[in-house]
């Protein structure tokens, strides 16, 4: 059996145990260990790489931003900044068909400008928006799908951890990557809005539990007391302050993209204190939740890093490089194969590992084929982000599921509710791939 065959069998093995319900980090570590042991016929080596992956796998300033962005998300959530943003969006958009869903997307887009990781958005808006949509007759899985789907905006609208990592790997300016993410982010945002409105119009049974009741509420919304402009303004001050702090600080050179997480969390802390939402007990609760949410991601990253080292020993990256190089299909044929591979990897691997495996191999090829590396980066990041929403390993969906904590709403139902958003992302991906100007216009 060749290394490559063993590698492919190990991928299959991983998928099987993950589907059976093994903790994903444990599954990655276990299959990674067995894989290295078999491939190099040396158990010592499996241990040594395990030690390296544990000690060094996430030892990077970039990864330090993850707990900080999570902390910011939770602070913003308990000081009701997320809810206020959502309420304003709701007040302004309620008369629209599917207005609550559209409001969720809009609030997510604004929130994306302060957070760098999708799971932060997912965690915040699951708590804020899903119960509200539930009260208004939305099917919970679809409501959860809206949150999971629009959470990807957090990684596309700057600041963004994925854009930072791509920039580092492909050696392109992170500032330029950030600018390049804006138009595609808005495009996705409008795609999601259109999707929700179209579904509400033509397939209401996918959106609502009780279509008639929802219609009645929609009609009554016109008579409801809505927010006054004064209230809207008051509710918007904190989020506007945060967005200003972060984007202003980033583009005036006050701090770096990596530092944005720390500064943003601090800003959110100040807002929470000013709104008097934070006594000692709640502060503990916030920190405790931050820890639990962060560790799930960080341990996954360590495990995924170890697993990808095993894939490297199996020769998978080289095989992919050969496949991509020998495809002989010209630039867009290459891009198609590349995107398909990234999408497949997105089913089983986390975003960072995919970037680590694919970008160093493919960026030079893409460049030699005439692609702009910034355009290529946006295409890559969107393809990687689709993986956040696809089973069996879709971390945004997991986050929504965990944060929702509703025994009636199962993971697979949320995956189904998210599917339409995956299709919109795929469509946007096609558009952005075909028209480089969409990503390079602002640079």
């Amino acid at each position, binding site marked *: 059996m060749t290394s490559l065959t063993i590698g492919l069998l190990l991928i299959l093995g991983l998928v099987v145990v993950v589907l059976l319900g093994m903790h994903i980090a*444990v599954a990655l570590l276990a299959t990674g260990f067995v894989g290295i042991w078999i491939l190099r016929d040396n158990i010592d080596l499996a241990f040594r790489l395990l030690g390296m992956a544990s*000690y060094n796998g996430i030892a990077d300033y970039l990864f*330090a931003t993850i707990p900080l962005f999570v902390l910011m998300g939770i602070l913003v959530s308990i000081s009701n900044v997320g809810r206020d943003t959502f309420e304003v969006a709701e007040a302004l958009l309620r008369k629209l068909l599917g207005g609550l869903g559209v409001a969720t997307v809009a609030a997510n887009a604004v929130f994306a400008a302060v957070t760098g990781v999708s799971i932060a958005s997912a965690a915040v808006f699951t708590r804020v928006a899903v119960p509200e949509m539930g009260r208004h007759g939305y099917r919970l899985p679809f409501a959860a799908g809206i949150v999971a789907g629009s959470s990807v905006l957090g990684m596309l609208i700057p600041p963004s951890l994925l854009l930072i990592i791509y920039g580092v790997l492909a050696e392109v300016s992170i500032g330029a990557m950030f600018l390049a993410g804006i138009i595609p982010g808005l495009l996705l945002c409008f795609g999601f809005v259109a999707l929700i409105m179209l579904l509400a119009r033509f397939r209401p049974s996918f959106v609502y539990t009780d279509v008639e009741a929802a219609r009645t509420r929609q009609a009554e919304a016109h008579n409801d007391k809505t927010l006054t402009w004064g209230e809207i303004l008051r509710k918007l001050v904190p989020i506007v302050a945060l967005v200003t702090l972060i984007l202003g600080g980033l583009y005036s050179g006050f701090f770096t993209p990596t530092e944005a997480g720390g500064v943003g*969390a601090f800003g959110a802390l100040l807002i929470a204190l000013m709104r008097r939402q934070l006594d000692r007990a709640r502060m503990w609760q916030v920190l405790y939740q931050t820890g639990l949410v962060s560790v*799930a991601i960080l341990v996954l990253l360590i495990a995924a890093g170890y697993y990808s080292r095993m894939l490297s020993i199996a020769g998978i990256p080289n095989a992919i490089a050969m496949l991509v190089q020998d495809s002989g299909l010209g630039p867009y044929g290459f891009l198609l194969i590349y995107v398909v591979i990234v999408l497949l990897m997105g089913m089983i691997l986390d975003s960072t590992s995919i970037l680590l495996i694919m970008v160093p191999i493919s960026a030079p090829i893409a460049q030699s084929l005439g692609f702009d590396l910034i355009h290529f980066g946006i295409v890559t990041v969107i393809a990687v982000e689709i993986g956040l929403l696809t089973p069996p390993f879709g971390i945004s969906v997991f986050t929504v599921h965990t944060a929702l904590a509703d025994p009636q709403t199962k993971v697979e139902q949320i995956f189904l509710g998210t599917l339409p958003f995956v299709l919109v992302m795929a469509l946007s991906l096609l558009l952005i791939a075909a028209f480089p100007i969409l990503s390079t216009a602002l640079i």
Partner: protein
Amino acid sequence: MNATTEQDKHRGTMGKTLHWVAAALSMIGTIWIALLMFVIVADVMGRNFFNSPITGVAEVAARSVVAIAFLQVSAAVLNGRMTRSDMLLRVFSHFSPRVTAFLELLFALVGAVVFLAVAYAVWPDTVRAFNTNEYFGVRGVFTVPTLPFRAIIIVGAVFAALAYLAVAVEHLRQIGRPQS
């Protein structure tokens, strides 16, 4: 009958101690996250207003993430917060709760083994770090010993393994319990 009660009680204290240690470790990790935030803000302020950034923030932050992760992991295991996809498991549980409990038991044991392997894997370099006073940073700029950072991985991984064992024991009891 008596013996079983004794055992349960004993297990209870063990379990309580484990929960207590996990909570304590996670609290340290949690405070660490807050400190990280303050250090980054101080670094940004120092650089912009006083032309004096804090040296070594990037390196220390990098090592800190690892420590934070391993300090939290046992609490995450005990609280059922490790990411998983349990849809098939739930389907099984309709047909046979015992089979489900058996799979859960098996997976928890794999978890324990994997984290023991992590502790074992990190051990040699930890001993070396102790013997050679290994540091990170640059002589004359700033240096920080690596030993505490390596030791935290071992402590965190060992308690994660114990946490998985505790979970395994719970599932074992479910298998033993008569099906209703």
